[in-house]
């Protein structure tokens, strides 16, 4: 990893941004051009490791397909004809149109969008609040990570993460709907999971497919997609019936145990076996393994958050974890140290009537009302407002780093909604199918061209990592800087402060400034355990709430429960004849990040085409061979992907990867409709009552051989 430097070479400390990040790196430059990127062996979380995506970063930053200049639409919307303009012109035009729409429809008619947890994530919220609109949204808010943080906060008062960082190794790890050996952006580090496994932690994995994590696990529970809460309730009952819970902890530090015991009375392993397809004896085995190999910890993933059962899935699993009592203990589930000062998002500066106007606020209290941790608009309601003008019109969408046509459910409806706008601005690194729909496209900086600090693991913040501007490609700019300049053009009362001022505000508790941390690269705050013994848990009762007082107050079910999904073999008898298989989507590729990365040659070579997984028995039944293009159809639409035959999936289930478009295919679609999983997914009601989550997984589908 170390090599000799010549005189013109300089090495910077930074942290990789090919996913949500967390991996410290050393970036070498020669004459201001980046020549090498290596893992930083001293960095506290990755300790020198890097994944395939990070190792391909040079082909990202210097990719010839990158957007380099602002572009203005020449033909009609979505036609793909562009004219280069300069930054000043671009921002002036955007500002003028925003003012016009604001004057005519009110500021709530301007929606602000972004993708998943990137470097500018909290800054985009700040910009929306400064602009005065309540309607910012992102595909992940109702169905990725925020629900986990929410359920964890309701139950424990803060997000729990696995403690891989101290001297005590978890004795068992429950991995649920998650593949940490390939992905690790949300509050944990996959590399550290691997170390723990190699050190001897027992691994129990719940997944409908034989993931790479399931493959190395001691126990794999192959669950029917969408039935996770039923499995968790049955495991809770086993642990209670067998007296395997931590009774000291339950007595002293929890509320609602008796109500929970009553709630799970009927949740026998036989009941759960029928619902989940997991054999009763395996449920017992898993519950015992988890409860008796202590300390144990929970690795939960996005799969749990992508159906209308979202919050109840998470609550059931959080409560199951609480029974072990391994909360804020070495090698168990810990609360982070929250090293940074809370980001100044400025929600308190948004007028109360605007909070009330937020689309979804009247229904989805934990997503869109002021009760939510990070209030955002309910995305399908925003698209409906663009389409129908109800409950009020949304006429502009300012997107900072999101390929909306690939990443929101029901792409065809999203396409119609975007087509209906008066102003669409897309800031991105590449010309995506979504950017092709815009009035103005702005070129965004990559992680090697931005300045920021960020706490990791996300939301725990025991380590603060830095990213610093090392190179410049074309006229690309950091999203935050674009927002600051736009705020200035709009003469907003705040939100115009220099970026470094905001970064230094975040750094205040660490008594360093940005210039200093750029040299350091990272700062670690030592973990403290058993914090509740001094201050209690940060819930209304000060205890772990098996029975949630907040959910009760908001008139949601305060106890975990299971219900069959809206679209499912049991709930949709009218569909099952035509759509006989269960469709699960969204497993992360080890080489792509959602819809990103397909322009990067080293990565694309590894995954040339989207591969749908089906069981050989199913393939035979439908006349499909390994490697055939296969049609996949739901009531929303149809796509094709290549069949990959594997015994690692149930014959009744089909798995397809998401985020697939083909940058090499002709503009303006770039193959958007060919293999995009979200053509098939469902964005209509019923939603999760508290989080507003729609159904991206466990849908019904049919398959056939395609050409």
């Amino acid at each position, binding site marked *: *990893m170390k*090599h000799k430097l010549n005189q013109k070479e300089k090495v910077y400390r930074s942290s990789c941004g090919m996913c949500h990040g967390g991996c410290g790196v050393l970036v070498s430059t020669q004459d201001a051009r980046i020549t090498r990127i290596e*893992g930083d062996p001293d960095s506290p979380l990755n300790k*020198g*490791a*890097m*994944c*395939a995506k990070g*190792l*391909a970063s*040079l082909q990202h930053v210097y990719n010839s397909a990158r957007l380099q200049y602002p572009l203005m639409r020449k033909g009609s919307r979505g036609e793909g004809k562009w004219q280069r303009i300069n930054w000043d012109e671009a921002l002036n035009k955007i500002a003028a149109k925003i003012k016009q729409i604001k004057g005519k429809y009110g500021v709530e008619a301007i929606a602000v969008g972004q993708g998943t947890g990137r470097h500018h994530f909290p800054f985009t919220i700040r910009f929306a609040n400064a602009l005065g609109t309540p309607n910012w949204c992102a595909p992940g808010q109702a169905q990725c990570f925020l629900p986990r943080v929410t359920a964890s906060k309701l139950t424990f008062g803060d997000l729990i993460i696995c403690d891989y960082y101290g001297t005590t190794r978890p004795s068992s790890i429950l991995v649920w709907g998650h593949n940490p*050996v*390939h992905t690790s952006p949300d509050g944990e580090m*996959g*590399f550290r999971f*691997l170390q723990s496994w*190699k050190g001897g932690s027992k691994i129990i994995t719940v997944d409908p497919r*034989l993931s*790479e*994590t*399931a*493959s*190395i*696990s*001691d126990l*794999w529970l192959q669950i029917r997609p969408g039935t996770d809460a039923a499995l968790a309730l049955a495991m809770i009952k086993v642990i209670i019936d067998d007296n395997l819970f931590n009774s000291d902890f339950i007595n002293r530090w929890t509320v609602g145990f008796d109500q929970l015991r009553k709630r799970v009375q009927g949740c026998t392993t036989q009941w759960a076996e029928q619902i989940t397809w997991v054999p009763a004896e395996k449920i017992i085995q898993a519950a015992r393994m988890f409860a008796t190999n202590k300390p144990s910890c929970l690795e939960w993933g996005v799969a749990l958050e992508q159906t209308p059962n979202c919050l109840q899935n998470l609550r059931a699993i959080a409560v199951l974890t609480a029974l072990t009592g391994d909360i804020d203990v070495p090698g168990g589930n810990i609360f982070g140290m929250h090293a940074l000062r809370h980001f100044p998002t400025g929600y308190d500066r948004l007028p109360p009537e605007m909070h009330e106007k937020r689309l979804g606020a009247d229904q989805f209290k934990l997503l869109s009302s002021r009760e939510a941790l990070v209030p955002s608009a309910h995305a399908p309601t925003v698209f409906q407002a663009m389409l129908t003008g109800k409950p009020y019109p949304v006429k502009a969408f300012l997107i900072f780093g999101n390929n909306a046509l690939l990443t929101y459910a029901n792409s065809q409806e999203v396409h119609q909604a975007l087509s209906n706008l008066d102003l669409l601005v897309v800031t991105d690194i590449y010309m995506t199918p979504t950017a092709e729909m815009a009035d103005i496209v702005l070129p965004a900086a990559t992680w090697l061209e931005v300045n920021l600090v960020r706490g990791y693991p996300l939301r725990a913040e025991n380590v603060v990592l830095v990213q610093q501007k090392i190179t410049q490609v074309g006229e690309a700019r950091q999203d935050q800087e674009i927002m600051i300049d736009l705020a200035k053009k709009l003469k907003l009362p705040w939100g115009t402060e220099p970026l470094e001022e905001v970064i230094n505000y975040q750094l205040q508790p660490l008594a360093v400034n940005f210039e200093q941390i750029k040299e350091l690269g990272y700062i670690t705050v030592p973990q403290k355990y058993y914090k509740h013994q001094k201050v209690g848990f940060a819930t209304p009762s000060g205890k772990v709430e098996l029975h949630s007082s907040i959910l009760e107050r908001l008139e949601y079910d305060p106890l975990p429960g299971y219900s069959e999904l809206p679209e499912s073999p049991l709930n949709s008898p009218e569909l099952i004849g035509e759509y006989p298989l269960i469709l699960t989507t969204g497993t992360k590729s*080890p*080489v792509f990040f959602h819809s990103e990365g397909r322009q990067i*040659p*080293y*990565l694309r*070579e*590894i995954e040339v085409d989207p591969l749908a997984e089906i069981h050989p028995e199913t393939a035979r039944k439908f006349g499909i061979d*390994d490697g055939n293009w296969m049609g996949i159809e739901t009531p929303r639409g149809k796509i094709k992907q290549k069949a*990959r*035959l*594997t*015994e*690692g999936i149930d014959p009744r289930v089909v798995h397809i990867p998401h985020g697939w478009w083909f940058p090499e295919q002709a503009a303006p679609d770039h193959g958007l409709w060919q293999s995009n999983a979200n053509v098939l997914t469902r964005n209509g009601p019923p939603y999760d009552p508290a989080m507003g989550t729609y159904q991206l997984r466990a849908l019904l589908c049919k398959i056939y051989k395609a050409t």
Partner: protein
Amino acid sequence: MNRLVFEPKLCVGCFACEVACKGEYQLPPGIRWIQVEKGAEITNEGTPWIPLNLKVCQHCAFPPCVSVCPAGAIEQIKDGLILLNEEKCNGCQKCLEACPFGAIAFDPSRQMASKCNLCIHQASPRCVTYCPSGALTFAATSDSGPAPQRG
């Protein structure tokens, strides 16, 4: 000498080794000195398992590529390290056919063979440096018999 040692039971199919290698040598598309292959069938040894294999030069003790090369471009250094001398390679591709591991590639743009050199310029091959699970190690093997079988 040290060789690449692959333990399939530890491989998690993350492809870091491939991209680490490609980046080190800026290999063009189609040239993969090291390649992870994911099998379709589950090996039933008690627990289900995804079979992963690795295609890479084994630096054999008795290398068929060396003996078949008419230009003397593939040389065996020490007791195993097999290096390609690009100046001598005439692009005949006989080594590609001779290699039982399919580990030698042909670079059409340069009209020559292309293969792993174990990163002799640094202490450890870059693929090993970035293997997160320890499936790939750089370890001494006293291999003096026939070409080793892997997987």
